[in-house]
């Protein structure tokens, strides 16, 4: 029994560490370019197909011109694809561009009260750092979670 518990502890710790590390995958250009107007969203939060579509449309990026030069675009896209989420999207459907519209995001945030989303300190569901206090460091652990009052 004790051994089982130990193994379980290791497995859970191992899984947590693995997910933490992949969310923390970093690249200086990605951090600088994708992090200038918002938190640089971790590559793993979208599949490679989505990143490809995102990087191809930066001149019209959610209502803003976020265009960057071709060499930097190529480097960032390679980084994003290499560290992208592994779940294969439905090829018949257009690639998902909003992280907040993924099933994963909705499931992870279904306990967040409606009042929190409406809090002016949150402003937008894209504002990870409003609650994930260490989002800038790629740390989305529940321990660093603080809902603004």
């Amino acid at each position, binding site marked *: 029994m004790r051994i089982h518990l130990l193994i379980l502890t290791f497995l859970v710790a191992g899984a947590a560490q693995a997910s933490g590390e992949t969310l923390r995958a970093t690249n200086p250009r990605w951090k600088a370019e994708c992090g200038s*107007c918002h938190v640089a969203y971790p590559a793993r939060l979208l599949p490679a197909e989505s990143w490809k579509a995102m990087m191809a449309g930066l001149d019209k990026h959610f209502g803003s*011109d976020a*265009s960057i*030069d071709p060499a930097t675009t190529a480097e960032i896209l390679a980084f994003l694809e290499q560290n992208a989420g592994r779940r294969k999207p439905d090829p018949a459907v257009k690639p998902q561009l909003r992280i907040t519209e993924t099933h994963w995001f909705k499931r992870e945030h279904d306990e967040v009260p409606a009042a929190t989303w409406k809090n002016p300190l949150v*402003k937008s569901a*894209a*504002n990870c750092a409003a609650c994930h206090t260490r989002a800038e460091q790629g740390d989305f652990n529940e321990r660093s979670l603080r809902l603004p009052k």
Partner: protein
Amino acid sequence: MFHTIMHISLAAVLAIALPAVAQTPAETLAVLKQTAAETPGFHGFSTARGEQFFKSTHGSDWSCATCHTDNPAGVGKHTRTGKAIQPLAPAANADRFTDQAKVDKWFKRNCNDVLNRACTPLEKGDVLTYLMSLAK
């Protein structure tokens, strides 16, 4: 041979460590002036025109001041994401207007967002002249 390799690696390290072609805001302005001077009727940049341009909307919802605020020597805020924007006035932020590629990138993006077109060299020069006139 050894010395050559040392020199090459030293050069490589320096190239990585130094920011891309550093220049002063005055040099950035001089580049704009050179281009603006090609326009007929150019009589120099104007702080007052730059301030007016910065604080007005130009057919869209946003002005420069929407995110950079009416005091570009202070911290601004991205109107959509809420992310803090460091001061734009060189007196308050020594990094501003010191990297030509960065200057070009942001003028392109922000002029598209605010005016739905590229800014003219005169408009850019006026704005930079205004920003450079601000104290910390």
